[in-house]
């Protein structure tokens, strides 16, 4: 309460704004399922999980198959490569942003996975990025690996020919 500030932009002198900085700290629970995925990052691996009902592979998983509503059980190690299904170039500054703009945010479908996730794409000119582009994960140095996505520095183009639209269109 000590750092409360008041703003008066009204000619009659009424208080038009009262700023109360607030700070909340949370201890997130990863959960059993996501922990397996996070431990994978610590080893420099993508770990997905397969749904026992529909056999789809989710990475990362929050603990259940969103379609069948059952726990995911079987662990699947995925490759380091994938396809950019779609992307955007972010050029908007906002509070708490940690990456220099403009940057490419791509939806990455790892080979062997059935769900894409958002990843940073670098070592790639902004005008070069495209749907279907093949990419690979670039990991931090071994001693810096942590149980978080922070272990993946970014994705970069592999230089392989683009994936055909038909191979990823159902993930759009």
């Amino acid at each position, binding site marked *: 309460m000590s750092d409360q500030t008041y703003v008066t*932009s*009204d000619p009659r002198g009424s208080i*038009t*704004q009262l700023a*109360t900085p*607030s700070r909340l700290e949370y201890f*997130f629970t*990863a959960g059993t399922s*996501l922990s397996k995925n*996070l431990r994978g990052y610590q080893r420099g691996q993508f770990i997905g999980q397969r749904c026992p009902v*529909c056999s*789809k*592979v*989710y990475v*990362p998983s929050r603990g259940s*198959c*969103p*379609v069948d509503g059952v726990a995911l059980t079987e662990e699947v190690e995925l490759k380091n490569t994938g396809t950019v*299904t*779609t*992307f*955007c*170039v*972010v*050029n*908007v500054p*906002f*509070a*708490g*942003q*940690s*990456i220099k703009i*403009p*940057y490419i*945010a*791509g*939806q990455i479908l790892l080979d062997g996975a*059935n*769900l894409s*996730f*958002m*990843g*940073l794409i670098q070592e790639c000119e*902004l005008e070069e990025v495209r*749907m279907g582009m093949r990419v690979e994960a670039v990991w931090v140095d071994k001693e810096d690996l942590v149980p*978080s*996505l922070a272990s*993946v520095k970014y994705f970069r183009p592999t230089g392989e020919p683009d994936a055909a*639209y038909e191979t990823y*269109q*159902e*993930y*759009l």
Partner: protein
Amino acid sequence: MANRVAVIGIGQTHHRSKREDVSIAGLVREAAQRALDDAGCTWADIDAVVVGKAPDMFEGIMMPEHYLAAALGAVGKPMFRVHTAGSVGGSTALVAAHLVAAGLHQRVLTVAFEKQSDSDAMWALSVPQPFSAPLLAGAGGYFAPIIRAYMRRSGAPNDVGMRVAVKDRLQALKNPYAHLHLPDISMKMVEESVLLWDPLHYLESCPSSDGAAAMVLGSEQAATVAESATGRRPAWVHGMAMRSEPTMFAGRDQVNPQAGRDCAKDVYAQAGITNPRAELDCAEVYVPFSWYEPMWLENLGFAAQGEGWKLTESGATALDGGDIPWNCSGGVLSSNPIGASGMLRFLEAALQVRGMAGEHQVEGARKALGHAYGGGAQFFAMWIVGSERPN
């Protein structure tokens, strides 16, 4: 079995980037008082209050409806708080409407708001979560890749989004409540604005607004009383539906979500509509980013898959000369008090069929669609309102 539901009072605030002249309580009360005045009733006539808003982090107040109870005349009454992400303004109206349809109440006040200037919505939507990459840059960053997928899938020309951006801003000039009034808006101006989330330009995105929307929903009896007291006819609810699907799952069609298609099918069936383009006179559809007009034209059955952009391009969705005008009020692209944006769609649809939309009135409008969506385009809320009492 359900009782008929009528929209008997409508109110909204002037939407601005900062409403420094009012507190949150003052903001919601402004909209609510206008709705009560329109319905020709007083706070004492209201049986229950249903409040909706988007995430509490947008203002930094947890469950603000508690503090707003007195300002909204809810003391001693049932008060309810809905939160279904961006669709919340629509869902809130539906929750209120069901209270009347179920026969529980005669008159329900429903209010939705956002006072985005009280905090930082971009920050609230991009709170760093430890288990995902810190890439998400607000809603635009989420939806831009999906828009790109639509462009690829439909083969639409690149300028369709810009056409929507211009059309909705021109329509907003006819709505005194709209936040953005850009008389000089042009394709060139949109194209030259910053590419915030390539492929989306700054002017293809919704603004950040302070504002509130309110409606008094009434039973058939309350509608009769209101009409004889005010001389203004009600809008009748002909159908209402909600649908949800998971945010992400293998094989999810993010461009044309099943939940949106199912929700539209349900609401049309209730209203006896088989061809929405022909049978509806106008629609207020949640289009926060320009490309969502052609995408929702397809999702809602106004155009065949892959053909939505052709309707936009032909001018069919314009108030001026179109056969099925969309977002005559200027839509979300012109005013976006997030929690209220969905309710504004519902409320504008009702204004149209009451013949009370002023300069942006579609002449002789008899049936209109109100639509809202939220989350990762996974939550849908819709209603159809008409000038005639439903069977």
